[in-house]
Structure formats: structure tokens, C-alpha cells
């Protein structure tokens, strides 16, 4: 796979103009994670109501892949429920191994992350937002159910 497959317009667009960047007042979910290998940092905030991610924001330091992935994740999951979020978390993880669990229609912009599978050193960058959200959701479930 070529560099063009990795650095698609969609990725660069989300990197340069990230969606849902910032923090939330009184977040129900607040989690900070870093990738110890490269120092990428991500902070996720979300409001949860009735099992739905009413709002979700992120802040972070990182490469184009990790920040674009976080930006696209917030767009995809805002207003969606836990099951929907888990479906996408699983789907994006599988995508990094070249597996197709989500249709192109379901993926939308996220399809642009397919190219990352050919760059093993960058898979962790693409997954940081997703694994961080999963951890936060699991912790929340363990605490109070969502």
C-alpha cells in the first residue's frame, strides 16, 4: 500500500480541522490515555444519558493518524448508544488486521483508516482513540452500567 493510501485527503482534513475538539462541562466520561511508545496523548470527554453518548469531545497531542482517527470517532459515535459504539470499536480493531466487519456504508469517512493496516508501526496510533473509549465504557459499565 502506498503513502497515498495512508494519507488520504479525509485523514489530512480531520487532522488539520479536527471535529469535536475540546472538553465538556461535568463530563460523565473523562479519560486520559497515552501511548507509552511514542508519547501520543489523548483526553476524551463524554456526556452519557440513557445509555447514549450525547456528546463526545477529545483533546490530544499526536500524529495525523491518531488525531484524525479520534476526530472521526467522535463524529461517528456522537448521539449513538453503547452497542453501536462497541460495534465500531470492534470493527475498527478488526480493520487493522485487514478484516472487514463494517460495510463501507457503515464506515463512511472511517474507510480512510483502512490503509493503516499496511503500516504496522502506525496501527497503535489509529487505535488509541478507540481503545481509550472502550476502556472508559468498560469502566463505566463496571461501575454503574450504561
Amino acid at each position, binding site marked *: 500500500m502506498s*503513502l497515498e493510501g495512508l494519507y488520504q485527503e479525509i485523514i489530512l482534513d480531520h487532522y488539520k480541522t479536527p471535529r469535536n475538539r475540546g472538553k465538556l462541562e461535568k463530563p460523565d466520561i473523562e479519560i486520559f490515555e497515552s501511548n507509552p511508545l511514542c508519547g*501520543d496523548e489523548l483526553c476524551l470527554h463524554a456526556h452519557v444519558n440513557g445509555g447514549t453518548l450525547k456528546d463526545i469531545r477529545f483533546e490530544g497531542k499526536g500524529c495525523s493518524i491518531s488525531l484524525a482517527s479520534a476526530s472521526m470517532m467522535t463524529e461517528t459515535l456522537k448521539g449513538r448508544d453503547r452497542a453501536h459504539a462497541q460495534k465500531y470499536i470492534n470493527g475498527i480493531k478488526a480493520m487493522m488486521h485487514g478484516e472487514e466487519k463494517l460495510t463501507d456504508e457503515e464506515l463512511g469517512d472511517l474507510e480512510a483508516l483502512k490503509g493503516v493496516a499496511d*503500516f504496522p508501526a502506525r496501527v497503535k496510533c489509529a487505535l488509541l482513540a478507540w481503545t481509550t473509549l472502550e476502556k472508559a465504557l468498560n469502566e463505566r459499565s463496571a461501575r454503574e452500567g450504561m
Partner: protein
Amino acid sequence: MSLALKQTAASPVPGKKSGEIDPAAIRKDFPVLDRKFGGKPIVYLDNPATTQKPRAVIEAITRFYETTNANVHRGAYRLAEEATAAYEGAREKVRAFLNAATVEEIIFTRGTTESLNLVAYAWGRANVKSGDEILLTEMEHHSNLVPWQILAKEKGAALKHIPLDPDGVLDLAVAGKLISDRTRLVSVTQVSNVLGTINPVKDIARLAHDAGALICVDGAQSAPHMAVDVRDLDCDFFALSGHKMCAPTGIGALYVRKSVLEKMPPFHGGGDMIRQVFLDHATWNDLPWKFEAGTPDIAGAIGLGAAIDYLRGIGLDRIREHEKTLTAYALRKLGEIPGITLYGPPDPSRRGGVVSFNVDGVHAHDLATIVDRECAVAIRAGHHCAQPLMERLKVAATARAGFYVYNMEADVDRLAEGILKAKEIFKT
């Protein structure tokens, strides 16, 4: 030494000053540098992480396993005697390489990290008490930071850090004020793995000794690239990694001044480090074996010996000059790229062959991916195991190129080309 190099020495390349090394000829000694990616020969610039291995080292290891392999220090048979002689011969090579007074002062370890942990564990636990201070710097690698944090926490000691000036140079005036009669140890890197800064270890050693403290030197980024004389530096501990100087991974060394080592309790317990063992206690072997428990990395040590022969064959002073010239070229060439930030001292004579940089609008990881895929250039991106320094520089990560004997100006050109390509992709 290699054939290619002998030819170079006999007939200097036109345009090269006599005494200058010829990296194009030296490259032929390193089989992996024949690798091509996308039709382009690899330009390997991740030398601060690990260096490539010359054929002489690879063959020395193979030869040992094919002709001499046996455990050391115990066999009564000739094969074991030969293996022991080869292993101890490698120790003598390390001694000469560092100009230590005696082989008793040279301990084989797994690398700089283990060497520094040995000092923190064996010396530190016996000599650092509650209220004592250990003085480090803001530019240390995690391996010269975390062992001291663990020790300090356990003992109730305090860590202090010599600050950096804006060029990434240690402020010795402040260092002088930070050292007190509470300071037990000053531990400092000789060359920064991020900034390339060469620290005035000899001056720092004098400051430390004047205050009654010892000095430990992280030589991971210096020993491979410049002549080191532990007696001239007047250091008490000096740690190095084999794999950063053409030897295999898994072998390194620690120099400890004999008067200090004689009073140190052991590090690991086990075979070979003992004299007599009873059910409830044991007595220790002589120096340096007291500090080498278990079967050591015999082939690794022999590989390190071969690497030292190889590097001394070229000449450490020549290697230093070569890297200085190349670094000056890189600072100039990369400095021309719009939007680039170069870290560390601008004066090449004050730095080793490490150049860290960032490019506006392109994260270091993206740079590393693009220069690799586009130009087959291997560089590092990240925090380089120096997170506090990254914090100090107010960056999350940098890209880093580091040079060695086989690198040349054309490698820098290829890196610059890759960076321009990255800027093109990111439209900056």
C-alpha cells in the same frame, strides 16, 4: 579490519583529506546496508537507538559458536579454557577501549540500562541514606532517571536536576550550587540522545568530587562515537551498550573505579559470583566476577571485543571528526527547510552526531513514515525515552537522525528530500 578500509587507507579518495574516513568504503563492511526498500538502498539513521553490525563482528560470533563454544570459568577441558580466554580477552579489550587501570574494573552487563541499575542497586543501596541527594540533569534518558527514582523513593533521598539553557547545554553555574555535602552521586549522560549535547563530564566530575560525591557517566551515546578515557574524565562509574557501537544486542559494560568497587556489595546472586556457598550464607568471588552472576553472554562479549577492534581500527578520533563534519552538514542542509526546528547546540563541535527536529504541521511519526516509504530513510520519532526533556522542550515528540561511520552527506540529502515530500503531502 575490512579489506575495503585497508584499500582506503592505502589510496585516499580524491577530495578527501588524509585521515578522513571514507564512509562509502566502510558501508561495504555492513551487510545489512545492502538492503533495498522499493529499489532504494536503506539510509540508516537510527544509530542512537542501535547501530548496524560489521561482518567482522558477525563472523566473530559465528566463529565462537562454531569453534570455541563452552561455558566459561569452570570447565577443566581445553575447549572451556579457550572460551574463557576469549571471554576474558574481550574484557581486556573493553578495559583498553576505556583506558581503565585494570580489568577488575570492567563488569559485563546486558547494556547501559543494566549497568546503571547495577550502580543504583549495589552501590546505591549501600551508600544512599534518607536525606541524601542524587544530582541528575534535565536531559537524561529514562535509564539514567528511573533507577535513581526507585532508589530515592526507597531510601527517602531527594533527586535534583541540573537545568538546561535554551541551546540544550547544561548550566554548570547552577550545577555548582545544586551540589552540596548532601550530594552522594552525580549521574549524567556524556552525550544527549536527543539534543546531541556533549556534556563537560570532566568538569562535573571535579565539582562532584570537591563536594565528596561520586560521578556516574551514561556513556551509551558517547563511547561509540568518541575516544573515552575514564581516568582522564576521573569518573567513578561509566556505563556503555555494545549494540550502539557495532556489537550485538544484549551485551554492555560497566566501569567502576576499583576503590569504589571493592566496597560494593553484589548485584545479582547466583553461580560464578560466589567463592563459597553454605546453606545459610555465601562468600563472594574476586572482582569483577563478583558482579557477574550466572552464565554471561559469552558470544556477546566476544562480539563486543570484535566491535572494539573494528572501531579502533578506524580510529575513534577519526569517527568523531567524521560525525562532526556530517552533523555540521546536516544542521546546514536541514536548517534550510522552511518550518523546521532543530534542537540542541547550533555549534557542531559541542554536539555528537544526533540531530532532533520537528517540522511545522507534520508530526514526527508522520515524518518517519514518509521518509521511510518515500526515500528508504530510517529515522526515529517519539520521545526517545526522555519524556522529561520533551516536556522541557515543550514538544510531544521529535524526529531524530543519528549518524555513524557508514553515513555520508548523500544520506542527509536523502533525508532532506523525504522531509520535503512530507511537507508536500501535508501541504505545509
